[in-house]
């Protein structure tokens, strides 16, 4: 049987190559599509993440007029509140950072002194931090401050009697970050005499639990009340909505294209299988006359389809991956390094493509086997 299969394939190379081309094209497209979709998702996540934290958890007692006027809460809460999030999994809060802000006068200039702690990730997943991690004894200086005092990286500065080294001067941001000095949380707490206190936890809505029916803020507030009844959450809807819309757009885009590609490829393989079967009607009749059962003949056709699927999957994966690796980094510049060959896609292709090719060939093969030999064997 295998010899018969391979000899027929080599005899009708063009049909086989065209059929394989259909599978290769479908697999290559899907592999490239999935690989770049993942890259696109990563890029979207990264770009929207870089828009900044969209959630601010502040003490419940905060006066909101003052909060919006000052840009931060005047009320403080214990720092260890942030640790409460650690115990929760599948949570809508990500990238939690405890912060303490206070408006201070430094060298005659009104600046905001901000202490930041390393990030906490409730999901337990390893994520790239959103915010810089400041080493002890160093500060990051906002653009306007650096510009006003001609500060450069490596300069020594005095902050309320404590020496710090400028680890970085920040680029112009167009927000009050330009008049901010960032330092490690514990050192800011010490300078301000507010040990163990914070006035804000910054976070990012990970959109893990949102759906179309529920307002995400409702979910966030419900979850927060479980973890931190002493706090309340404020959401920057512009950023949150942009993130969500972008993500949904990608999901809808994939949901629309995927069936379209599969249907076109199935039709292509099916038509070629049909042509192949039409060409081989007499052969099928002869094989039946020679004692081949309908099942054996069907295996011959489906075996060819499976082989077609396996080769198509392998070649398609290689081409799709090569295209993604070649063009992907130009399109997704921020996360370019994350574009890598996806072995899981190869395994999926090796399973799905033969099944898909066999399914496309099944109806023509079944009809051919059922064809009346009295008709086919008299055809010239």
């Amino acid at each position, binding site marked *: 049987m295998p010899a*018969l299969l391979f*000899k027929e394939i080599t005899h009708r190379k063009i049909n086989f190559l065209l059929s394989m081309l259909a599978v290769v094209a479908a697999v290559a497209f899907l592999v490239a599509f999935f690989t770049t979709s993942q890259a696109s998702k990563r890029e979207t996540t990264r770009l929207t993440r870089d828009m900044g934290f969209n959630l601010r958890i502040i003490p419940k007692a905060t006066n909101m007029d003052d909060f919006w006027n000052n840009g931060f809460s005047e009320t403080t809460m214990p720092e260890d509140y942030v640790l409460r999030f650690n115990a929760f999994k599948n949570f809508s809060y990500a990238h939690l950072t405890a912060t303490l802000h206070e408006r201070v006068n430094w060298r005659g200039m009104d600046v905001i002194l901000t202490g930041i702690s390393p990030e906490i990730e409730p999901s337990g997943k390893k994520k790239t931090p959103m915010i810089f991690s400041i080493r002890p004894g160093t500060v990051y200086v906002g653009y306007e401050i650096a510009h006003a005092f001609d500060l450069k990286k490596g300069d020594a500065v005095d902050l309320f009697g404590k020496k710090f080294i400028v680890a970085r001067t920040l680029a112009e941001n167009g927000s009050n970050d330009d008049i901010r000095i960032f330092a490690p949380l514990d050192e800011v707490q010490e300078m301000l005499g507010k040990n163990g206190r914070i006035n804000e936890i910054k976070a990012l809505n990970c959109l893990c639990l949102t759906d179309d029916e529920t307002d995400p803020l409702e979910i966030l507030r419900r979850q927060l009340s479980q973890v931190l009844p002493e706090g309340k959450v404020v959401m920057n809807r512009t950023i949150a909505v942009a993130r969500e819309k972008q993500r949904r757009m990608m999901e809808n885009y994939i949901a629309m294209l995927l069936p379209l590609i599969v249907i076109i490829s199935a039709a292509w393989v099916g038509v070629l299988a049909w042509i192949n079967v039409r060409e081989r009607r*007499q052969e099928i009749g002869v094989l039946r*006359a020679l004692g081949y059962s309908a*099942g054996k003949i069907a295996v011959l056709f489906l075996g060819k389809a499976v082989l077609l699927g396996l080769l198509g999957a392998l070649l398609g994966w290689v081409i799709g991956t090569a295209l993604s690796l070649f063009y992907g980094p130009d399109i997704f510049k921020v996360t370019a390094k994350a574009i890598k060959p996806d072995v899981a896609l190869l395994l999926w292709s090796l399973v799905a493509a033969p099944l898909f090719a066999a399914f496309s060939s099944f109806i023509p093969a079944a009809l051919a086997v059922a064809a009346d*030999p*009295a008709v086919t064997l008299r055809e010239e």
Partner: protein
Amino acid sequence: MIDVKNVSKLYTARGKTVAALNDLTLHVDRGEFVVVRGASGSGKTTLLLTIGGMLRPDRGAVSVAGEDIYALNSAKRATFRAAHIGFVFQMFHLLPYLNVRENVMVAAQKDKKADAYAILQQLGLAERVRHRPAALSAGEKQRTAVARALINQPDIILADEPTGNLDPDNAADVIERLAQFHAAGGTVIVVTHGKGADKYADRIVKLEKGTIADL
């Protein structure tokens, strides 16, 4: 050896039903050489395919070597056909991607490599074993088809116009091969318009409108 009892096979085309075989009854003894004649559309090929277990009749029964072949399931009928029946067709129907030896072997039930060689040698094809059908003459193609029909040492050969595409010399040669099989005890039913087989025939059967007109 072969019992065809009250067999009918109907075809419907453009709303019209035509009986390719119409309540046909035929008995063929073991070792008999039967020639079947008839006009186009008289049901000759349908009869041959029905006897060969290739075409289930709408009515009636077909028994070959004591086996009611349409009582068998498709797979068992295929095995039975391979073991007991050899087919020879007018259009040769060799597989274009196999060479002569492979075309014979494709029908072999078990490893018949030596037999294939011996049969091909007897049929004058020893030098052509590695050639594909496209490189063969019509006579060589039909002799290959005869070799294929003989490879499993069947009890019966069913030949449908085996000389229809051959020149007189090759036609005579093919009939001679069938006669040799018959002489060795085989049963032959040959559908033919030519007269070449008449001298070997134990019986000539004429079909008309799906039924036997003359014995």
